[in-house]
Structures are given as C-alpha cells and as structure tokens.
C-alpha cells in the first residue's frame, strides 16, 4: 500500500514541498505560499489566530484547500485524503492514543501501512530505542512524563517514514526545564530528518533554534520570511520586532536622518534614501530624569512612562510621547530615576545603536 500513497507524476523530479495554501472561512482567509527542499526545517511563526495551525492542518489534509495547490515530491496532494498523504503530524498536545502502549502508539502508523503486527512492533521498538525510550515501550501515555510523551509523539509521526513532517507547537506543552532538553533533542532529530519539516510555533526561540528558515504569518498572510538571523536583525512588522525585542519604526531616509511617518527624526549611521525601517534594542536607550546637559539634540525625546515590568534582571520601561519606545535599564538605575507610571523622562539613543534598512 505504501507505494500507492502518492500518485507521482512521471518525469518530474522536483523534490520537496511546493504549496500555495488558500483556505477561506468567511471571516478569515489564509493565503500563503510555502516551498521547501528536502532536509529543510521551516518554522511558521505568528501570533495566535494568525492561521499557523490552519496552514498545518491544510498540509495534513485535515482542512480542505479552498484554492491553491499542494505538491510534495512532485505529487499532487490537494485532493488526497489525510490517510493517503505521506505526511506525519506531531500534534500540540501529542494526542497519543490513551488506550495503547507507547510501543503500539508508534506501531500504529506502520500497522496501517499494511505491515504485520510483528513488523510494526519491530519498527516501533526501533524508533523508541532511537528516542531513548526503549524501557518505556510498555507504558501507557498517562504514565509518561511530558518530555517522554513528546518523544513518543515524534517517533509515532516518523515511524510512517513521512516525506513531510508537521509539528504543531511541539514544545508548548512542556515546562521550562524539560523544554530545554527536549528542544535540543528535537533539533537533533530534525537535523537527521531527510525530508521536509514544517513546524508551527509562537515562540521565537523555538523557531530560531529548530528551523533553518522562518516564515512569519500575520492575519493569514506571510509578512516576512528568511533565516532566523536575518529576521532577528531586520524585523519588518511590530509583531516580529516585539518577538525579537527591538524598537521598530518606519520612515523616510535622507542620508543619515530618518523622518518617521509620525514626525520624529532618528539619526542613523547608515546612509540611505527612501522608505526605510529603523530598529534599535531597548538596551541601547538611556533615560534621564531631566534634559541631559551638553548632550546633542540628536535622538533625544521627551517621554512619559506608561508601564514598568521586570524583564530578566532588568526593568523594561514602556514609554509614550513623541516616540513610543521600550527601554531596558538596571533595577538600580530605575530606582535612582524614581521611575513610576506617569513620570516624565528624557530618552536618548546613540546613532551607533540604531540600524536602518530599506523597507
């Protein structure tokens, strides 16, 4: 049966994923193009409700495409039912079958692909062994820890030898400590995986550690895609800027000065012309209680404190005013400035801390 799972088109050898997913749900429309070569790990990153999970379900065949196409290794899959797609899914809460042991959960796929009971168990045992779970083969899911259950779910998805592996928030259900271990393991398994992997996450760290390429989705459309490093350095929407922890503004550059659409001017080191983004990290902002004497008027703004929160060992200050921005400072500095909601401060940023790039 397994060789009947896809109807390969003769003469095409375009390996990997080539998809244009359009799902129309009246109030919500998903429209994204997604391509990936075998061995690629693509992360769909986006806020809740952006359509990440819908995209994943469309790839798995659990949601019908309204329009567009879906090709995997040259085979058209648009109308293929989920059970006939060479696709493996790791669900967010794993959905391990509670009545089956870890071994039988992993063996479920091979068994459905017409392996005999003994064969499927042998395959499952091998996968569990590879995941370091050999001694838990006989355990029911409820007896497994979160990290173990996650690995069983990954083994179960991989045991069908999929050409496309889908992972829906693979680390979201884990506590912070387990997460670190499991993330490292998952990274290793994804690196070994020879076909296309697409993972969905709203955690930028997961996305950057696990994926070679990020696709950021907002409101059903792709707003930016690229390597993790590129996206971290050149965010193009407020959502991404917030994720990677940068202040982001859009404006018109004329040499070293950028005039923002809202009025303020930022001096940058880059020499650019036309529509640009300017980004700088909150840690690059210095706050003063009164107008700093002797400082140049460049990149100096009068702001009001809108909110304070601890951010690691620092204080993240949200400022409104001429230029809304976030600033990070030490607890001591925050205490000395007597920061509180409504306090008026002066904020400066050195031009060398800013980074401008064409929009």
């Amino acid at each position, binding site marked *: 049966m397994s060789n009947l*799972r896809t109807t390969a088109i003769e003469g095409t050898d375009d390996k990997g994923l080539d998809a244009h997913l359009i799902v129309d749900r009246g109030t919500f429309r998903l429209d994204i193009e997604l391509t990936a070569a075998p061995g690629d790990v693509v992360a769909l990153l986006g806020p809740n409700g952006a359509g990440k999970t819908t995209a994943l379900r469309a790839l*798995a*065949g*659990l949601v019908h495409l309204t329009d567009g196409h879906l090709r995997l290794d040259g085979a058209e899959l648009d109308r293929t*039912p*989920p*059970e*006939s*797609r060479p*696709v*493996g*899914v790791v*669900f967010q809460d794993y*959905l391990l*079958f*509670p*009545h089956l042991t870890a071994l039988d959960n992993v063996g*479920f*796929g091979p068994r*459905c*692909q017409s392996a005999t009971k003994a064969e499927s168990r042998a395959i499952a045992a091998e996968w569990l062994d590879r995941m370091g779970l050999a001694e838990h083969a006989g355990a029911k899911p409820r007896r497994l820890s979160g990290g173990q259950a996650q690995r069983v779910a990954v083994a*179960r*998805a991989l045991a*069908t030898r999929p050409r496309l592996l889908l992972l829906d928030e693979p680390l979201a259900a884990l506590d912070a400590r387990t997460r670190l271990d499991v993330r490292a393991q998952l990274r290793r398994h994804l690196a070994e995986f020879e076909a296309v992997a697409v993972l969905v996450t709203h955690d930028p760290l997961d996305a950057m550690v696990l994926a070679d390429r990020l696709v950021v989705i907002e409101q059903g459309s792709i707003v930016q895609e690229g390597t993790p490093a590129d996206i971290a350095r050149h965010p193009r929407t407020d959502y991404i800027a917030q994720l990677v922890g940068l202040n982001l503004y859009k404006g018109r550059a004329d040499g070293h000065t950028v005039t923002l659409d809202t009025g303020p001017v930022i001096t940058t080191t880059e020499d650019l012309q036309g529509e640009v983004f300017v980004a700088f990290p909150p840690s690059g902002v210095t706050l003063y209680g009164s107008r700093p004497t002797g400082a140049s008027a460049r990149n100096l703004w009068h702001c009001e404190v809108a909110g304070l929160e601890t951010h690691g060992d620092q204080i993240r200050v949200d400022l409104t005013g001429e230029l809304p921005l976030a600033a990070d400072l030490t607890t001591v500095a925050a205490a000395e400035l007597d920061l509180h909601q409504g306090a008026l401060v002066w904020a400066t940023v050195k031009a060398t801390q800013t980074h401008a790039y064409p929009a």
Partner: protein
Amino acid sequence: MTQLDTSDAAAETLKGGPGRRRVRMTGRGVPLPLLIPALVGLAFLLLPLVALLVRAPWRSLPSQLTSTEVWQALQLSLFSATAATAVSLVLGVPLAWVLARTEFPGRGFLRALVTLPLVLPPVVGGVALLLALGRNGVVGQWLDSWFGITLPFTTTGVVVAEAFVAMPFLVISVEGTLRAADPRYEEAAQTLGASRFTAFRRVTLPLIAPGIAAGAVLAWARALGEFGATITFAGNFPGRTQTMPLAVYLALQNDPEAAIALSLVLLAVSIAVLAGLRDRWMTTS
C-alpha cells in the same frame, strides 16, 4: 432525564474518572423547606420496595421460583433483553457515531426522532410496530409474502419490540460519550494512515467503550422491564412471548404470591445492574 445522566456520567469517565469535588451541605443545616420534601420524596421512592420485601412469601418462594412458568418467563426475558441489546449495539453505535461526528441538514431533527421512543408511551410504540411490521403492516406484508417472515406474536417480535424501546437509550448514551471524546484522536489516526473506519474501530471504539458499556446496560435494563410495546406487538403467550413483566401482570390477577415472587426476581436483577454501575453513577456528583 435518564439520557442526560448517562451522557454526563459517560463524559465524566472519559475525562478521567468521576469528579470528586462535591459540595457537602451536611452539618451546616439543610433548610426545612428542602429537607421535608426531600424526606417525603425519599420515602415515596423506597416505601414500595420495602413493601415488596415485607409482603414477600419468603416460605413459598423457593417453590414459586422453580415453577416452569417462572423459569420460562425468566429465560425468555433474559434472552430477549440480551438479543435486543445486541441489536441495539450493532445498529445504535453506528447511528450514534453518525449523529455525533457528521454534519448534515436536519441532523438535529433526526436526533429528536431517534429519542422519540424515549418519551413515547410504549403501548403506542407497540401499535406503531404492528402497523409497520405486522402481517398487514407497511413493511410486514412484504416480509410475509416474500420471505414468509412473521414478527408479531413471536419471540423475534419480543426482541423487536424491546429493541425499539431500548435502542434510543444506547444511542443517546453513546452519542454523549462520543461528543465528549476528543475527535482529534481520529484525526491523529488518519494522519498515521488509518481510514476513517479504521480510526473508528481502533481508536474511537476503545476510547468510548465505557460509554458503550453503560449504554448497553441501560438498554438491557430497559428491555428487561419492557411491557407495553411487547404485549401490544408480541402478545402474551407463555414460553413464546410472555416475558417477566407480562408474567408479573398476569400472575397478579390469579396468584398474587407468584406476582410478588416474580417481582422480587426483577428487583434483584435491577439491584444487580445498579451495583454493576455503582462506580459510574453512584459516585459521580
């Protein structure tokens, strides 16, 4: 309201055992306007059962229960209730799945029709069965002329009548369990290469087994006590269609002691059923 209890109980079990957070009022005083009707209600429910035990002809009981008629009625009752339950399972579980897992216009209306026998007076059900499957019935005339099958006034007729009355209990119970069960398990099975039917057989069915068992017991108990539809559709022939409830009713006219003895047997069966379901209903809040 039985169907609600069932689905809730079934839902509880699926979610991992009965809820343990019960709010206890005892010790803080129950208001009299609630306490008095509660006690009267309790007495009202228990008194008849107590009376049955008080007036039971304990001395002649062994001979009563070993008489041929009693044995015949008991055997017939157990057989037909079990057969009706089997029919309900074979037809009712798929029906419950369709009602719970598919969307089609008129689904709500169909569901209401399925539950109709729950509220329909059983005698009316019996009349309806006669009109449908009787010798001159809408379908029955063809069964008779084509296959020579006659249902009314036969043991098969008893099974049909009981299944008609009992199946809705099973359907409602299983449907409730299915609705409470996470349909994404079926999706997970599908992504692993299982067809929808394989997913149902290997994943859903084991997951909802407790709900099916509860529904089956409920249907069985209902079938065992069936009177109206049975006597209307299948008649009252000893050894052929005379089930325990019919025997009790008949005995009450000629031989009250025998009626009490038979009633005791049915009471014992009911208590046994309740004991079997103890963990499901008596401990859920």
